């Protein structure tokens, strides 16, 4: 009898230890699950949808004729195929830079002025809200970036270079943190961005609402912050290198389902 009790106690201890080992990552997953129910990104989605349809700017036009890659006015499914080549601007553009191009072409707003505006202010806040809504229209769809145009392939190769480029006071590259499985910083799991990191991870999770600072972040701001953490000079908004990094991550994420806009700590 005593032996059975002892075995039972040992078993309880073993499962206890196991529960503890699992609890870190699972605890965060559970926390995210609870927050998903009331993701404030929804507020930005509503704002973005209204902005898309609203007549604004010197031309007093809406963005409903904006071509995001699947024809004028098509919103569904565009997010999982960006960045891509656009013939009218002769550039590979990501979602945010494409929105700025449309705002300039259709509404007559000053693209250079928007690019200079700090994130979260003025027209930049509008770009983020628009990107949030457009991303939400492709929720659950799988990434499938086009690579047929030579400039799209060039963008991928440039992104790859930038990803592995080590520099700055800390001799850092994107790859220092994001080129291996199972890495983490404190409790944050780091996705391996050199391949498909899985559904709703990495490139497939942004734009995201950050609970810690109550801000909605698009991919441009996400990358800007990566540059800051590497102690690199800030890249310009919608600059070639940020779009190239987007192409690199997006092409690598082929087949991953998008959960954007998501919620982050």
């Amino acid at each position, binding site marked *: 009898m005593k032996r059975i009790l002892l075995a039972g106690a040992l078993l309880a201890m073993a499962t206890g230890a196991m529960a503890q080992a699992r609890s870190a990552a699972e605890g965060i997953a559970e926390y995210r699950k609870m927050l998903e*129910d*009331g993701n*404030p990104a929804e*507020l930005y989605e509503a*704002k973005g949808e209204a902005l898309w349809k609203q007549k604004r700017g010197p031309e007093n036009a809406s963005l409903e004729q904006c071509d995001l890659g699947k024809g004028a006015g098509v919103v569904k499914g565009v997010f999982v195929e960006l960045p891509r080549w656009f013939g009218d601007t002769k550039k590979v553009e990501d979602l945010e830079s494409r929105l700025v191009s449309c705002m300039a072409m259709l509404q007559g707003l000053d693209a250079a002025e928007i690019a200079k505006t700090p994130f979260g202010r003025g027209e930049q806040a509008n770009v983020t809200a628009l990107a949030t809504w457009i991303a939400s229209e492709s929720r659950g769809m799988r990434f499938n970036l086009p690579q047929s145009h030579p400039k799209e392939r060039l963008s991928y190769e440039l992104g790859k270079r930038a990803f592995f480029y080590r520099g700055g006071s800390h001799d850092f590259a994107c790859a220092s943190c994001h080129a291996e499985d199972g890495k983490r910083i404190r409790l944050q799991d780091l996705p391996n961005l050199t391949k498909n990191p899985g559904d709703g991870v990495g490139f497939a999770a942004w734009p995201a609402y950050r*609970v810690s600072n109550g801000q909605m972040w698009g991919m441009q701001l996400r990358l800007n912050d990566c540059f800051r953490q590497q102690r690199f000079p800030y890249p310009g908004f919608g600059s070639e290198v940020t779009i190239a990094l987007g192409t690199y991550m997006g092409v690598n994420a082929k087949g991953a389902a998008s959960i954007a806009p998501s919620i982050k700590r």
Partner: protein
Amino acid sequence: MADPMRIRAQAAGDKTTVRVLMSHEMETGQRKDAAGKTIPAWFIQEVTAQHNGKTVLTAQWGPAVSKNPFMQFVVRGAKAGDKISVTWVDNRGEKRTDEATVA
């Protein structure tokens, strides 16, 4: 004019779960801006919820509630098609009311 709330109300049996997402800065009055000046307090002070025009919940909030707050509560006896409305008033006297239909 404040941004709209998102209200979802889902009936299950005789209970209806209402989930509300509000858009508000909820500034505590404790923070300072880049120039070192205190950012004035600005937060929701009073929340009321009505079921078909009858008040079912009132709450007094303070600066400890997060930015873009999320609130969830259960109304007994609400049926599909009923109206649920939520109102908040902040310390500047600004006000916002939104309504949703129970699904």
